[in-house]
């Protein structure tokens, strides 16, 4: 009985917070647009049973997505931005995590605190702060012009560069924390052994430290990559009118076009695309747990 409850609880969670909302989105994705409240008419009735449902199935909104190159361009562009941003976050996050793990033990809680501290301020306000830093009359440009490094302000705000800066800044802690926890557990004697056996410091790092922190790197990368792919707030505040991301397209379909069925179809596809990295992430976590046991 206890065992049953233990298994049951996560399933209730999954059904209530994932499957039911997903079924609602899917239902709208299969509906037709209409001028009414809410602005769609379902094409079928659940009550009529599965056979009637299959007979009336209308994938019109999904075919619409394939007819217009906007959608796959937006998916690809999101994918590209997510990959590049994740790479930068890793390149910046790894040294920070490494330095934290190598810091004296009594400093570590303070350093950890400093990484988490930005979360005390609303995410939205922090992104707005970047608008103030990056704009043409912003702090960064004023400083650079004051030092005489540049004579004309750098145009950063409303470009893809600003989007990358925003994503790297926002998701950096999600990269640092798993890598830090992997590095912290690293047995220092392994490095010593490698060096005793003739490895240079660099090759010891490359052949011992990196492979042993692999799980942390993979976990961190997925934690950054998955939310970045569907990101909406950062590109809409920091990006330009030409920054193409699927989250923005979804917003436009929903708000500007008031085309809920197509917006829902876009969301369903986005979710399907995310299933692959999510499953990979799960597997990585599982492997790590098994290794620990």
């Amino acid at each position, binding site marked *: 009985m206890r065992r049953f409850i233990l298994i049951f609880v996560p399933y209730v969670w999954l059904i209530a917070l994932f499957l039911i909302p997903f079924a609602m989105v899917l239902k709208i994705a299969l509906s037709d647009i209409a001028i009414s409240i*809410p602005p769609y008419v379902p094409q079928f009735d659940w009550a009529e049973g599965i056979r009637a449902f299959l007979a009336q199935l209308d994938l019109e909104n999904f075919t619409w997505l394939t007819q217009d190159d906007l959608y796959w361009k937006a998916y690809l562009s999101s994918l590209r931005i997510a990959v590049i941003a994740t790479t930068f976050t890793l390149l910046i996050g790894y040294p920070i995590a490494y330095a934290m793990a190598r810091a004296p033990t009594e400093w570590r809680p303070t350093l950890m605190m400093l990484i988490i501290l930005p979360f005390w301020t609303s995410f939205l306000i922090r992104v707005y702060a970047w608008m103030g830093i990056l704009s043409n009359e912003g702090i960064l440009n004023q400083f650079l012009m004051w030092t005489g490094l540049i004579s004309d302000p750098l145009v950063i705000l409303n470009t893809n560069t600003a989007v990358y800066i925003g994503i790297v800044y926002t998701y950096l802690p999600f990269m640092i924390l798993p890598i830090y926890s992997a590095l912290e557990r690293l047995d220092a004697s392994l490095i010593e052994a490698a060096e005793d056996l003739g490895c240079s410091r660099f090759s010891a790092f490359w052949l011992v430290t990196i492979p042993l922190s692999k799980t942390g790197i993979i976990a961190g990368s997925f934690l950054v990559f998955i939310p970045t792919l569907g990101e909406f707030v950062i590109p809409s505040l920091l990006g330009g009118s030409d920054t193409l991301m699927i989250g923005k397209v979804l917003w436009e379909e929903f708000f500007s076009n008031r085309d809920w069925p197509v917006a829902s179809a876009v969301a369903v596809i986005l979710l399907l695309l995310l299933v692959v990295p999510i499953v990979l992430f799960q597997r990585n976590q599982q492997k790590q747990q098994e290794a620990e046991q």
Partner: protein
Amino acid sequence: MTTKLFTLTTVAALSAAAVTAEEVRVYNWSDYIDESLLTKFEEETGIKLIYDVFDSNEVLETKMLAGGSGYDVVVPTGSFLARQIQAGAFQKLDQSKLTNAENMWDAIEARTALYDPGNEYSVNYMWGTTGLGVNTGQVADALGADAPVDSLSLVFDPANMEKLAECGVYFLDAPDEMIPAALKYIGEDPNSMDADVVAKAEAVLTTVRPYIKKFHSSEYINALANGEICVAFGWSGDILQARDRAAEAENGVEIAYNPPKEGALMWFDQMAIPVDAPNPEAAHKFLNFIMDAHNMAAASNYVYYANGNKASQEFLVEDVIGDPAIYPNEETVKNLYIKEAYPAKVQRIATRLWTKVKSGT
């Protein structure tokens, strides 16, 4: 008037005492009211006023069509109002509660009846035109003294835009306004519901797209006033507010508003009560309060938009009633055009076109 106001206040005070913490939620455009009117309404009626703002008809419409917005009064533009009435988003106004209805201007009501037949669901708040906000000094520097500052060619001719890009141009992020303007420029019917005609706007907008700094529907007020940009295609009153902010700041920036001589879009923002408004009683009180000639005049004097309230005109300052950019004369009115709501399929084409223009895809 004073006695009437007095009784109104006492009655309101009594009813406020009876129903504690009565609230009315109003959702209006940004920078669109004299905020002292909000406190005045609370003092007169004892109703707590929650006032939120938006800057896009599309966002308002999504909230209306989702239902359960929680607002008691909203202010959509005519063409959007028409579609929302069709969707059943609004309730008919109880005319018996709108004692100030006699103040309204029949010339405007005749026009708004196109969107809301018989004006059963809505009352005009303000109206205006969409046109060119120009930083006169910077534009003269870029294009010379004979720059076509009152013509659509200023923003739709790439030769002009190339030179203006240096000092910065903003467009409204509103396909329902920018597509008709582009059509007007090439001599097509701006109110066309024909998908093929609407599609012609794309070429016009795409050729000038590289020179547009940003598409935004409210930031241009400050950007113009600060001298950050030199041209904005925007709403009349907003640009006149920018003119005043620049004059107040004494920063040497001089802003002018010109309705395009080829023809300007004339639009009407209408106050309406959502069908599921939590407090329709208070919503009617708010409408009636705004329809008061003094209050309406105060709002117009503050935001530089014309209103649909005939009785308020004697209380308007000369800067407002005497400015043909706000209250156009007969000659200019002939040159104004209106825009109705697109049917769903054309709407999809229009929005798609807009995404394409903005994102280049």
